[in-house]
C-alpha cells in the first residue's frame, strides 16, 4: 500500500504505426491519455499533441517517404521530470532542414516549412539524431508540471 504519492517514471507507452497519415490519429489518442494522466493542463496537452503530430508527420513523409511497409515508432517516457517522446522512422535518414525562417517576410506565404517552428515553440527541447541501424530519431521533451506527475 502506498502511503505517499510516487513520481511516475520510465517508459509509459510504445506504439508502432504504418506510414499512413491517418495513423497519426491513433498516436494522438494514446498520447492524450498519457499526457492527461501526467497532469498537464488542457492547453499544454493540446500543444504537446500538435508537436507530436508534426514529428510523426515528418517521420512518415520525410523519413519513410510514405512507404507503408516502413514503420514509425513512438516511445513515451518520463525521466527526471521530463516527458520525453521519441519518434523513430525507418528511412534513409533526413535532416531537419530549415527551409528558411518561416517568419522571414519573404517566406511568410510559403505553403510549407512551419512544422519545426511549431515543435520548438510547443516543446522545451527538440533534438534529432541518426537512428541505429537506420532512420532518424526525433526527440521532444517537455517539463512535467511540478507535483503533477504522480500516481
Amino acid at each position, binding site marked *: 500500500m502506498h502511503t505517499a504519492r510516487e513520481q511516475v517514471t520510465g517508459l509509459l507507452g510504445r506504439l508502432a504505426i504504418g506510414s499512413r497519415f491517418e495513423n497519426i490519429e491513433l498516436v494522438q489518442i494514446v498520447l492524450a491519455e498519457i499526457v492527461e494522466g501526467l497532469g498537464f493542463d488542457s492547453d499544454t496537452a493540446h500543444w504537446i*499533441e500538435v508537436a507530436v*503530430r508534426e514529428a510523426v508527420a515528418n517521420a512518415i513523409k520525410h523519413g519513410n517517404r510514405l512507404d507503408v511497409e516502413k514503420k514509425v515508432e513512438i516511445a513515451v517516457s518520463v525521466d527526471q521530470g521530463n516527458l520525453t517522446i521519441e519518434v523513430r522512422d525507418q528511412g534513409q535518414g533526413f535532416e531537419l532542414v530549415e527551409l528558411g525562417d518561416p517568419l522571414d517576410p519573404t517566406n511568410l506565404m*510559403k*505553403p*510549407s516549412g*512551419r512544422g519545426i517552428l*511549431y515543435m520548438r515553440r510547443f516543446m522545451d527541447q527538440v533534438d534529432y539524431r541518426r537512428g541505429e541501424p537506420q532512420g532518424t530519431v526525433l526527440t521532444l521533451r517537455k517539463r512535467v508540471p511540478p507535483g503533477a506527475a504522480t500516481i
Partner: protein
Amino acid sequence: MKVEVRQSSDVTILDLKGKITIGTGDIALRDAVMEAVDSGATKVLINLGQVTTIDSSGVGELVSAYTTVTNRGGKLKLVNLPSKVADILQITQLITVFEVFDNENDALASF
C-alpha cells in the same frame, strides 16, 4: 474534416468542422477552395468556428487558399477563429496576413 458550402449574396462561405491536419483535412480544404474558385467564386469566407485542431499542413493550405483566390483577383477572409487556431496563426505571424473577423455579419459586410 467536413466542409459545408453556403452562399450569402455573392460571398461563398466554407464552414469547416474538425481537424485541418495532414492527409485528410488539408486536402479537403484544398478541394473545397478549388471547387469554389473554379465555380467562379471571387469572395470566399472560411468559417473556422468548428475547427478543433490545425497543424502546419493545415496552415499551409490556408496560405495556399489565400494565394489561389488572391491571384485570381478575389478575396479570402477568415471568421470565427477558435483561440488555438488564432494562436497557431499568431506564432507564424500569419494573423497579420489574413483578414480575420469575430463574427460572420462583419465579415460579410467587409467584402
